[in-house]
């Protein structure tokens, strides 16, 4: 904890407090909560890029898997859908997985040659055909159950907090598959592979209605905190609110947000402490050694690809946890809102601006950049209002004013480029 660290974190705190005073406390708490989530995502990426030099441009996918976990864990199961075809559908999925496993096993047994190629092709095609014959009718049956309100299998009906570790596990599973294929090759292959898997995860979420209703969205995911409406009807709460001089509606929204803040802050602190412990342990020294000189580390007997796989899975799992937390905060899963610029590349800006390789740097970047992301839009609007003042009313002026929303992308790009140029190690450099 240097003076600089403390100063910069105080500055972020001040910015959030100023938002509260000047705009509204609800906005300030929104920035704080999403800042906490962003900080965790940035921590995940920092583990991969900052500590191991791995290129992950598929954070969006891991975040979305976390969101899926929130649905699968906490939504109540849809009994009719399970009765209609749920078991058949799960069986079909197992058959599909079994077919893939069979192909892999056969490929391991046989030697390379035309026999192996032919068996692989036949097995793959037959497996796929079998899977589709089993899967398609089951899916149609499930999706036909009351499509306007359910049309999916639902979840397990467990407390939503359980979804956070489950989200991490789902993301870790996806990361394992990607890491197995793309690690150990040139570094930008991992980048392209992660870009691909994230797009596919979003496609699956958008199109597989039986899983999480696709673009029909799952809304009203159970919450770990009380509902505002219940608080407003609780006489004890109303009394306490009026004691603080707040009306019950504002007080209830603030109270709920503060509860989330408490939960999120706990997760962040635990993760930061764990990361710091790991980094100061021999494991952390080994990771840095591998990052700084792979050849030398390999010569010392370190299995570079294996370590890379390990840290890639860990970082992705952290992103998955953050994704589950975000969906919990929103109480809804809306696959249409996952945009790579927002959920992948913005996280990169956070890590680079905050300081790659520095745990607290990434956290700081998460808060700061999310603050900018929210606040650039009203500021840009104001700026354009001033700039277009002398212009006559007309198409150009309207166009400029309407385009203010796009200022934030421009700003993020400029911020990233400026930091990379003039302070390439970020606001809080790695020691």
């Amino acid at each position, binding site marked *: 904890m240097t003076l600089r660290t403390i100063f910069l974190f105080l500055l972020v705190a001040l910015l959030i407090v100023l938002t509260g005073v000047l705009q509204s406390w609800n906005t300030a708490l929104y920035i704080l909560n999403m800042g906490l989530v962003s900080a965790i995502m940035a921590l995940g990426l920092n583990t991969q890029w900052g500590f191991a030099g791995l290129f992950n441009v598929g954070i969006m996918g891991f975040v979305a898997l976390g969101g899926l976990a929130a649905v699968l864990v906490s939504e109540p199961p849809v009994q009719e859908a399970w009765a209609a075809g749920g078991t058949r559908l799960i069986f079909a999925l197992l058959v599909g997985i079994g077919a893939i496993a069979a192909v892999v096993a056969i490929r391991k047994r046989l030697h390379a040659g035309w026999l192996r190629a032919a068996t692989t092709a036949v097995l793959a095609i037959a497996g796929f055909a079998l899977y589709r014959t089993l899967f398609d009718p089951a899916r149609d049956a499930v999706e036909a159950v009351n499509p306007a309100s359910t049309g999916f299998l639902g979840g397990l009906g467990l407390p939503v907090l359980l979804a956070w570790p489950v989200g991490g596990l789902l993301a870790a599973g996806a990361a394992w598959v990607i890491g197995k294929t793309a690690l150990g*090759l*040139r*570094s*930008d292959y991992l*980048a*392209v*592979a992660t870009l691909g898997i994230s797009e596919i995860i979003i496609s699956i979420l958008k199109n597989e209605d039986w899983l999480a209703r696709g673009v029909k969205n799952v809304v009203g995911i159970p919450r770990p905190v009380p509902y505002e409406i219940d608080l407003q009807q609780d006489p004890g709460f109303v009394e306490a609110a009026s004691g603080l001089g707040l009306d019950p509606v504002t007080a209830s929204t603030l109270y709920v947000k503060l509860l989330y803040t408490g939960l999120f802050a706990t997760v962040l602190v635990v993760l930061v402490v764990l990361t710091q412990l790991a980094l100061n342990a021999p494991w952390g020294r080994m990771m840095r050694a591998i990052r700084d000189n792979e050849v030398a580390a390999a010569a010392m007997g370190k299995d570079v690809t294996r370590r890379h796989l390990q840290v890639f899975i860990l970082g992705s799992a952290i992103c998955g946890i953050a994704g589950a937390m975000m969906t919990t905060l929103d109480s809804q899963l809306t696959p249409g809102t996952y945009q790579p610029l927002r959920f992948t590349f913005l996280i990169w800006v956070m890590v680079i601006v905050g300081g790659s390789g520095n745990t607290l740097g990434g956290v700081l970047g998460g808060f700061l950049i999310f603050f900018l992301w929210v606040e650039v839009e009203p500021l840009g609007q104001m700026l354009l209002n001033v700039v277009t003042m002398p212009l006559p009313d007309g198409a150009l002026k309207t166009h400029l004013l309407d385009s203010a929303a796009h*200022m934030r*992308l421009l700003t993020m*790009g400029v911020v990233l480029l400026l930091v990379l140029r003039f302070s390439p190690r970020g606001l809080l450099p790695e020691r």
Partner: protein
Amino acid sequence: MDLLNALVALTNFVIVPATAYGAQLALGALGVTLTVAVLRFTNVAHGDTMAFGTMVTILATWGLQSIGITGGPVPTALIALPAGIAATAALLLATDRLVYRFYRQQRASSAILLIVSIGVMFVMNGLVRFIIGVDDQRFDDGARFLVSARDFKAWSGLDEGLAIKTSQGITVLTAAVVMAALFWFLNRTRTGKSMRAFADNRDLALLSGIDPERVVAITWILVAALATIAGTLYGLDKSFKPFTYFQLLLPIFAAAIVGGLGSPVGAIVGGFIVAFSEVGLTYAWKKVFSYLLPMGLAPDGLAQLLGTEYKNAVSFLILVLVLLIKPTGLFKGTST
């Protein structure tokens, strides 16, 4: 007769669209592969470069149309193309001067350059959205079809029609001309040879008196031209929407990697491989099968392997297969 009908259906729904799409991907992948070979980094901003070039071309098209100049049967956008290329080249050269040159002089690693290109991508994306917005734009004019389905049926007497859109014909023709010109440039001219020398061994090229800044500038101009042409052809064939162009990044990278990063021939072959697999796997083969197979054996379902919404999964599958089986790509690109 049934065989002919099946062939026509196959051509109409698979071969023609996939050839046009493949040509567009190949041009895009050529741009990526040139950046990798000469500038030595993976340019994430390539999709947005394509979007920028297409945007300028669209604006120029509208300008031409408003003063009454059109291309007659061919799309006006082809006349506007030079304006798009010039503007994109200017933008890329300015970006290089302001951003990339600093890192080149520092001999920064390709990883740093990739991150820098993320920043450039944000700026370009913001610029495009700021100027033209996020909505769909259609800008094709002129004749819609080279061969229309009805004319073909009347001429051949078959049940199946064959339609070739003007944009598809123009895509293939333009792509062929551009590729021929590019290979002539790279293999036959002094500048092209110096570019290849620079790509092969930078230090040796410097020793032989090749001016690196000139090579870099020419590369950016080529990338601008390829990106703008690819983007405009894609936009003519389908439509222009900034976000779609960002999503083209995945098939384009897949094409470049399948062919072998850094290999121009590979980029072209890769583009067609990705396009044909994408269209082939997402096409409902029922129609073709029902002509070929005897009565009763024809499939009940659509015989579609993957829904069209999963077409990006195809590029990814191809990518994974290549990474697992032959990481250097078909044409010996660099893999480490």
